[in-house]
């Protein structure tokens, strides 16, 4: 039977380095995904994901275990993302997804789908930070609204409202852009 995160944390606190590696391996993809979806480039996402784990292990004694270790990692990761976005130069960046989608294609349908994804990408970037956080946590990490509230330090209702506004905003922006083009 697989050990729980808390059991691994206990082992790590007792000096077992293998527990550290197991915990990182267990959550590294999730935290990288979160960071990538917030920061939208590999270098920043990789750096932030590592920092998230560093902070978690540095302060693991303050983790009260009221939530899951994963939820706690999300909290740390999102805080670091907010700081990174605040300090980031808003210069245009290279989006790997867009690059892939904009590669020369023959069929009209594929190009149209790529354009739609590109518009969606821009619309997501334009969302207010809290809405974007709720959207990423819900759509890509299947978090319950109660957990999203815990991660974002707000109530479940506020988390839900942020998510609903995000989806409705995307819908509106996509319709407006479609009308303009």
């Amino acid at each position, binding site marked *: 039977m697989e050990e729980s995160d808390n059991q691994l944390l206990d082992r790590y606190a007792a000096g077992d380095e293998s527990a550290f*590696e197991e915990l990182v391996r267990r959550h590294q993809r999730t935290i990288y995904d979160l960071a990538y979806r917030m920061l939208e480039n590999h270098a920043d996402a990789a750096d932030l994901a590592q920092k998230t784990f560093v902070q978690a292990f540095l302060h693991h004694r303050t983790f009260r275990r009221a939530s899951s270790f994963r939820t706690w990692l999300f909290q740390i990761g999102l805080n670091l993302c907010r700081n990174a976005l605040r300090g980031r130069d808003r210069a245009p960046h290279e989006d790997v997804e867009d690059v892939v989608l904009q590669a020369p294609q023959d069929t009209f349908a594929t190009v149209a789908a790529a354009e739609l*994804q590109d518009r969606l990408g821009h619309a997501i970037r334009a969302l207010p930070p809290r809405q974007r956080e709720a959207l990423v946590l819900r759509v890509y990490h299947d978090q319950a609204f109660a957990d999203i509230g815990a991660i974002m330090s707000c109530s479940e209702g506020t988390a839900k409202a942020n998510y609903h506004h995000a989806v409705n905003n995307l819908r509106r922006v996509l319709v407006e852009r479609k009308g303009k083009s």
Partner: protein
Amino acid sequence: MTCQEVQDWTVAYLELDLDASCVREVTAHLEGCPSCRAEMEAVRQVLVRLKGRTVTDPGERFWREFPAGVHRQLMDAQGKEGSPPGPSPRRVFRNHMPVRAWPLALAASVMLVAGVWLLGSRIESHNAGPAPNGKTVVHAPVKGLPDTPDLVEADWPGAWYEDPDTILVEMASSLDRQTVDRLFGEI
């Protein structure tokens, strides 16, 4: 139920986040309202498109090396903060150096210092040399220690086993000046 109410609940409806009675009402409204049905489909498409946005996998090598990278950063951060997170350096040190060795090392140090001090004090008393009246000076017993015998008249082999340090000091102090000059002059 009005069109506005249905549109307010569109996301919750698609997320299955409505109670059963609300779901029935929205469903009934959608059946008779093409514009709300179109709106519902548009929002559903947004969610489908959102789900379709994938993150490019950085590759197995990246994932393999990721924990080591975290470990390096953690070591750096520990150095800066001065507070180790997991196993403390004390514990790590303890694993390599049994704690019981510390009292032994301390006791050995104390004995060494005491020995040097004792030797120094005896050399001092012997360097005083014979008294002006020609009698051999019997060195005073060291304070706090049991009285030491007069080595001039003592049984040397017996004294050697009891207190070799004192015998050595006695032998050194009994060398006359000429012998010392001859020995060290050659060096």
